[in-house]
């Protein structure tokens, strides 16, 4: 049987990869994808803890995280589209002014 901490280690590695992606990449879409990696890493932790405790609440909170991730992706991508229309760039360093 697989111990609980192996799932947590996978989750920790995925979360670190996601946070490294947010810091290292300079493309708004890739940064949003890195945020999705982090959300999924946390989902894996929730489900693994819920399985170990024999409780369905670990899975319930995963549904809420998925829903919030969908809302975040929709609003985030709408912002990316609006920003791209103004600057013709996806680089976060291109957006330095508070208003145009």
């Amino acid at each position, binding site marked *: 049987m697989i111990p609980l*901490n192996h799932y947590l280690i996978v989750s920790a590695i995925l979360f670190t990869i996601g946070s490294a992606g947010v810091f290292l990449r300079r493309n708004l*879409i890739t940064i949003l994808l890195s945020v999705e990696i982090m959300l999924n890493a946390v989902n894996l932790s929730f489900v693994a803890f819920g399985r170990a405790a024999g409780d369905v609440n670990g899975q319930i909170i995963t549904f809420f995280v*998925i829903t919030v991730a969908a809302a975040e992706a929709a609003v985030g991508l709408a912002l990316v589209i609006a920003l791209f229309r103004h600057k013709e760039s996806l680089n976060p360093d291109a957006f330095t002014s508070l208003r145009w």
Partner: protein
Amino acid sequence: MPETLLFYVLAGVAIAASVLVIGQRNPMYSVMLLIASFGALAGLYIQLDAPFVAVAQIIIYAGAIMVLFLFVVMLLNAPQEDAAAWDRAHPLRQPGVLTFGTLLAALLIVELVWALGRTLGLAAPVAGRVGPATVSSVRELGRVLFTDHMFAFEATSVLILVAMVGAVVLARREEDR
């Protein structure tokens, strides 16, 4: 031990695909690789006796959210990173900085693996205490979701509505206003 082997294969696929996601310069490849990572994670959820979460992961994440990302990538026809000259001359683009950041991330991974690996009480088998029937029942999931978490569920529907309206307003062209 086929299921132990399957766990390590799925975990390896998820981690390798995620590393490749942040290693790509072309966002199109990143989205495709992230779908592979989510598929492997769905396999891990099935191993954790959470088949409903696994199916939701495939349908909502890999199906809906990633298609939304693909639409935006194709719609914008975005330039690759490093397209602009001012970007190539950016101080954070100097070669040492990227290596330093990657090293810090690798250090954080080593630290977390070390800490989680030696924590007592987490080393017990994940399926040891209770049988799979108590957590894999969709009936029980639905009962808890619609009774104990009723308020959060309804609040989520408002959140989705707000996100929908917000996305439409934000992505509208200026001249349409």
